[in-house]
């Protein structure tokens, strides 16, 4: 079964959807959309360094994404507003990554794959990494859901309840780095943030509580990845952007439906 590239691609898409969608809810609730983007863009630098030092791409991306997160945490609240800071860091990381890649002539061919994903080229090994990473993220969210939620709601409320908001923030950052590392192959560095944010935003109008929102977001993400994959094959379009396009169409439908419901 795993010999079929389409089966592998579908499973890869579902694996990423399972982890990215619920984590994406926290990204949306905490207004970390830009932060997600910066972490994802840093992935290109991670890829370049991993190839240069001949370590696994997964490890390279994880490390650079975490370093990016640490830098943001360190510099935030200083002289620049958060969005300015993230704008500087996200694009700088991307630019340095692209420059670094140009020093590695033998990987230049794969650049488009890293930027926009190459889900059809997912191998058994990749699939294993994707599902292992997704399992870690889902497990983390499952075990600490209530704590993460409390810390997201209000740091002082969390403190009073014996929850350390900084610890929870750190764990979310680690989860984000893992999702970036496993989603790189599926949608590419430039579009990862969309897989975090669009399913969560699509789910919001139809959820009354956080758990429902996360579950609906997973559903949306799975429809987007599997549907996008099929559409890309049908219309012979690039898969990563097609997946995101399908997610965006679902978002438009959800928002329209919500607006209609309010108007009635």
């Amino acid at each position: 079964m795993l010999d079929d590239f389409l089966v592998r691609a579908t499973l890869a898409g579902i694996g990423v959807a399972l982890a990215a969608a619920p984590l994406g809810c926290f990204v949306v609730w905490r207004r970390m959309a830009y932060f997600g983007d910066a972490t994802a863009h840093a992935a290109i630098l991670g890829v370049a360094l991993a190839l240069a030092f001949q370590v696994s791409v997964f490890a390279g991306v994880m490390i650079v994404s975490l370093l990016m997160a640490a830098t943001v945490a360190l510099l935030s609240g200083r002289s620049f507003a958060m969005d300015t800071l993230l704008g500087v860091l996200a694009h700088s990381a991307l630019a340095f990554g692209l420059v670094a890649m140009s020093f590695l002539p033998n990987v230049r061919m794969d650049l488009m794959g890293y930027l926009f994903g190459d889900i059809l080229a997912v191998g058994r090994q990749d699939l294993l990494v994707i599902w292992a990473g997704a399992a870690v993220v889902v497990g983390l969210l499952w075990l600490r859901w209530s704590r993460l939620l409390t810390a997201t709601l209000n740091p002082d409320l969390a403190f009073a309840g014996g929850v350390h908001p900084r610890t929870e923030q750190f764990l979310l950052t680690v989860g984000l780095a893992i999702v970036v590392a496993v989603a790189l192959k599926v949608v590419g560095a430039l579009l990862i943030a969309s897989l975090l944010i669009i399913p969560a935003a699509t789910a919001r109008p139809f959820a009354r509580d956080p758990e429902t929102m996360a579950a609906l977001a997973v559903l949306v993400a799975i429809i987007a990845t599997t549907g996008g994959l099929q559409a890309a094959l049908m219309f012979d379009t690039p898969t990563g952007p097609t997946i995101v396009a399908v997610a965006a169409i679902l978002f438009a439908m959800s928002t329209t439906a919500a607006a209609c419901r309010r108007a009635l």
Partner: protein
Amino acid sequence: MSLVSASGLQVALGGRVVLEDISLHVDAGEIVTLLGPNGSGKTTLLRALLGAVHATDGTVERKTDLVVGYVPQRLAIDPTLPLTVARFLDLPERADRARKGAVVARVGIEGLERRAMTELSGGQFQRALLARALLSEPHLLMLDEPTQGLDQAGEAAFYELIDEVRHETGCGVLMVSHDLHVVMRASDRVICLNRRICCEGAPAQVASMPAYHALFGRGTEGALALYPHRHHGVREGAA
């Protein structure tokens, strides 16, 4: 031993000293009110006692395994986060159903459990915050301006409720207010704060202290003179 105590506490935020030489304690069964003008460090002091901000000098001691029920001054719920009252009450830990029903009835928000937190009125919202704080069966209630959004009758009922809870559970209460009048009647002890502790003691005692008048101005005198005899229907311009 006190539930929570501070000694020689100093806190600096962004290099600016906002609290200095604070020594206080809250014991089980007593209601202590922190009174002070805006920017006097009341919220910061609560947060320091919680452990949410670090002391730059001095110490904060909490009783081992102290359970704190906290009502923050502001709880901004992001519109992207869907949250019903029932779900909110289950944070950070799921509460027992029967107990939840009892507390909800106690604070007077029955029938609102399925509403979104953002759909509540100001008064209902404050009651929901209090309900959540009570569900953890706290040894110490910390309330930061808990009567915002309540009208005068609601405010009086709220303090009455706090008083009842204190008698039933024996918990200590530390609350913050800039409201001079109602709070004075509802507290056992008052601590006046303006970066440092200006004066403290029983409400009637504090009301006659010069430091108190220096802090809150001459305008308060009339109202405070009324304080021991105050009954329903008396309105002051300061409210």
